């Protein structure tokens, strides 16, 4: 998990500092999950980066991640199934990790 070409990360693969992110970082982290980033992935990654800049939080839970995407990009993309296909596992966690955002608190 400690790829020397990546910025410092925690034991779950999240960046310690969201400012140290670059698109290349995203590609490398995604490849660990065998995800090849397409246009559709980048749209969500950019949405998350913008969301973090505007609100200074990661979407706190997967449900709220889906809701926020729906609010910004519409019903089709703001669905669990669409996001699960792009970011397998727990989409909010996987997408935040690739986008360089802090781990969602999952307090919900």
């Amino acid at each position, binding site marked *: 998990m400690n790829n020397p070409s990546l910025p410092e990360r925690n*034991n*779950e693969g999240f960046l310690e500092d969201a400012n140290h992110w670059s698109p290349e970082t995203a590609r490398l982290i995604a490849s660990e999950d065998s995800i090849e980033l397409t246009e559709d992935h980048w749209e969500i990654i950019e949405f998350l980066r913008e969301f973090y800049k505007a609100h200074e939080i990661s979407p706190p*839970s997967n449900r709220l991640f889906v809701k926020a995407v729906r609010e910004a990009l519409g019903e089709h993309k703001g669905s669990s199934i669409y996001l699960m296909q792009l970011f397998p596992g727990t989409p909010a966690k996987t997408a935040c990790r690739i986008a360089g955002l802090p781990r969602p*608190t*999952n*307090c*919900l």
Partner: protein
Amino acid sequence: MSKAIAYTIVITGAPWASQAPQTALMFAREALLAGHRIDRVFLYGDGVHLASALSTPPSDETHWPRAWSEFLEQQNIPAAACIASALRRGVIDETEQARYELAASNLRAPFEIAGLGEWVEGNLKSDRTLYFHGSH
């Protein structure tokens, strides 16, 4: 006598910093005596300190965390500390100890660590949600 009622009890005041845990315990005992049910207890904010296994008051003072643990175990009532509140304040179970690679865990049984979803569910399932706050 009116019908039995189900309560969710939320404690947000810490032991020794407030009376919240003791008032809540007196209330909970009386509610059961009156034939009511307590669905769950949820610790939030400073209330999570009630779930520390390391609190050690002098032997001639009431040990509120222990009194609560004994009550919960005797009555078989589930109790949870909010994960975000607990992590900030250093109340840690073994899972979170491993996740964050911490030196120790200190969650007192039978409390569990859980999300605010437990509180939302309590609001929906119980007839009443009652809050016991700190004094500041």
